[in-house]
């Protein structure tokens, strides 16, 4: 029996993993070799997808990127024993990109069968929950507080403090809400967990439920993730049938295409079946959240890290990282980068190291020009700021944000005025409509940047953009309006040459493909 592992992760499927899995099964059958094909999550080395692994007595051996047409040759090369082939990578754990990581939240992703509870248990699954049951609510919260774990959804609020607030809040019923709305462009870590290690999220939610006294959890995912939603629902069904969670119940809900529903109060409105409009705070969701009850709202990664913390202790997690950013961050490398994928490492790398050493520079081979960190509301960093340390405070000090951990690389064909205009376009498109600066100001922003691009009253219009950004920053209820100034102003500040009258704009002397990078 030959055991093969092919990712069922949607990014791997997007580049042919299903076809490869079918080809492997077909070829094995043709050769009369009994074969089992396990559909794992992704290891996160996206440029090597589809990555095929085979179980050998010496451990797994990886090959990639495998196309269906390579399969016969792989069998000829004695794939079953990990034989030599041009696509052979060797033991995946020994691949430098993986070996240099500190996999905590993603320890099992790409390794285990996400549709097998026994595989999950064999890899330490539910140990954290068992530990939490032994410790009781107060000590469980203490462990999370001691870990220094901060919310991975963007705002970086200490998870332990949030849990304690909900635990202390009076209420006949309480809720755990997992924010799986992952709308930030350039991010996919939540999706990878939903598809590759869904039980760890379920376990994390059960731990949170135990800690604060909640019996019901909701996972709010997005309709753009059909694959992940199927994978997660399958995992939920398995857990519910298994009975591991006892009285704690989890339900998957899927949004309907609204970026703003990632904002926690908008998400709660949406869960209640309403328009996803942002609520004014206070009251905090921790006091009055879903259906007016005390509610923990945490990102997928925050909750999925809790089991490790309970198993290994808060101190072990806190021992990693830098400054007030403790533990690891699953960094998501994307855009025009040679080695895109998921890289989990303790906080403290420099941005330059992430983009150049880990990411390998651009995929196009052209020079890196800009890096957008933290999703569509995050700042564009120029190469000159590559010494910025990857931690919440260091990024904030440079008018940027880590957000959910997205790092999107652009080469020198990017037109930063087009990117700034897109930031306003996105804000206009996704505004919940509650605040005038966000709803109207964003549309003005698009028009005004367009004037700059057209070379109309450039200086005056740039001043107008700055005023608009100021109004947005201080006149918005949430970060959709409030942070749109980050991408806009960082583009203007760090790439002023793209905001000049047309005849002096760098964009016009660059090769013709330059103008096609952004949106019209």
């Amino acid at each position, binding site marked *: 029996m030959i055991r093969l592992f092919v990712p069922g992760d949607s990014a791997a499927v997007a580049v042919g993993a299903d076809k490869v899995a079918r080809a492997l099964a077909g070829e094995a059958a043709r050769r009369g070799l009994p074969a089992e094909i396990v559909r794992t999550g992704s290891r996160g080395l996206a440029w090597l997808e589809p990555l095929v692994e085979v179980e050998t007595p010496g451990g797994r051996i990886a090959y990639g990127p495998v196309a269906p047409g390579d399969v016969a040759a792989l069998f000829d090369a004695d794939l079953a024993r990990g034989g030599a082939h041009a696509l052979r990578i060797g033991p995946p754990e020994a691949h430098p990109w993986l070996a240099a990581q500190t996999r905590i939240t993603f320890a099992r992703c790409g390794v285990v069968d996400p549709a097998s509870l026994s595989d999950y248990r064999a890899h330490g699954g539910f140990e954290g929950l068992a530990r939490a049951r032994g410790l009781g609510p107060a000590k469980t919260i203490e462990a999370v507080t001691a870990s220094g774990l901060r919310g991975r959804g963007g705002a970086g609020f200490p998870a332990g403090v949030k849990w304690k607030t909900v635990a202390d809040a009076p209420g006949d019923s309480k809720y755990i809400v997992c924010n799986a709305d992952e709308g930030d462009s350039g991010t996919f870590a939540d999706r990878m967990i939903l598809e590759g290690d869904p039980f760890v999220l379920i376990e994390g939610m059960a731990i949170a439920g135990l800690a604060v006294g909640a019996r019901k959890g909701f996972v709010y995912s997005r309709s*753009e993730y059909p694959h992940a939603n199927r994978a997660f629902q399958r995992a939920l069904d398995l857990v519910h049938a298994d009975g591991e969670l006892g009285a704690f119940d989890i339900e998957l809900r899927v949004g309907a295409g609204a970026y703003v529903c990632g904002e926690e109060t908008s998400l709660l409105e949406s869960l209640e079946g309403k328009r996803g409009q942002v609520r004014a705070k206070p009251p905090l969701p921790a006091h009055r959240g879903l259906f007016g009850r005390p509610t923990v709202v945490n990102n997928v990664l925050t909750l999925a890290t809790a089991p490790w913390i309970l198993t290994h202790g808060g101190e072990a997690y806190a021992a990693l990282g830098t400054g007030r950013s403790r533990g690891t961050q699953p960094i998501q490398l994307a855009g025009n980068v040679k080695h895109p994928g998921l890289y989990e490492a303790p906080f403290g790398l420099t941005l330059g190291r992430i983009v150049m050493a880990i990411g390998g520079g651009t995929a196009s081979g052209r020079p890196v020009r800009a890096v957008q960190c933290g999703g569509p509301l995050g700042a564009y960093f120029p190469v000159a700021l590559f010494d910025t340390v990857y931690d919440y405070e260091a990024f904030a000090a440079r008018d940027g944000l880590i957000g959910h951990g997205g790092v999107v690389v652009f080469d020198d064909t990017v037109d930063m005025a087009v990117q700034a205009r897109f930031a306003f376009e996105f804000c206009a498109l996704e505004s919940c409509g509650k605040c005038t600066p966000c709803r109207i100001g964003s549309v003005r922003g698009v028009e005004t940047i367009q004037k700059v691009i057209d070379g109309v009253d450039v200086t005056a219009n740039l001043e107008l953009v700055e005023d608009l950004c100021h109004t947005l920053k201080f006149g918005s209820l949430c970060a959709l309006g409030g942070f749109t100034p980050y991408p806009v102003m960082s583009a203007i500040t760090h790439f002023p040459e793209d905001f000049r009258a047309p005849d002096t704009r760098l964009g016009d002397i660059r090769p013709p493909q330059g103008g096609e990078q952004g949106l019209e």
Partner: protein
Amino acid sequence: METFEPWSPARAEQIIAPHLSREGALLPILSALQETFGCVPREAVALVAHALNVSRAEVHGVVTFYHDFREAPHGRRVVKLCRAESCQAMGAETAARFLLAALGLPTDAPWGGTTPDGAVTVEAVYCLGLCAVSPAALVDGEPLGRLDGMALAEAVGA
């Protein structure tokens, strides 16, 4: 390729019923209706409002708030093409223009749409979580990555 049932109030009632006991049932109901009928037709609004004992205005407000809900079904094939930053950085816009031109759909606002023969709908989406294999799209719900214009056109037979 998805096929949808023609609108039927009786069928709609059937779809709505099992959700009525759920907390915050409106969104799951609307999604389920759209899954069956390919859209949330105007007639459905009154039906849902009645079933949940809320006003029609409230249901209408929810339907219009979310980008997903549509009043008429989309084409027989649906391309949800990512236009967000990671895909921009990898040439998504060039790929999109190629596809739209091949289908004879507008490349300026309003971007995309459905071909007159109802064969293909092209919609903009903002991130599919497939950024590590940008540019990316969902074609009839199936993820596709490392796309260019040719691959996209091929995927929908344009």
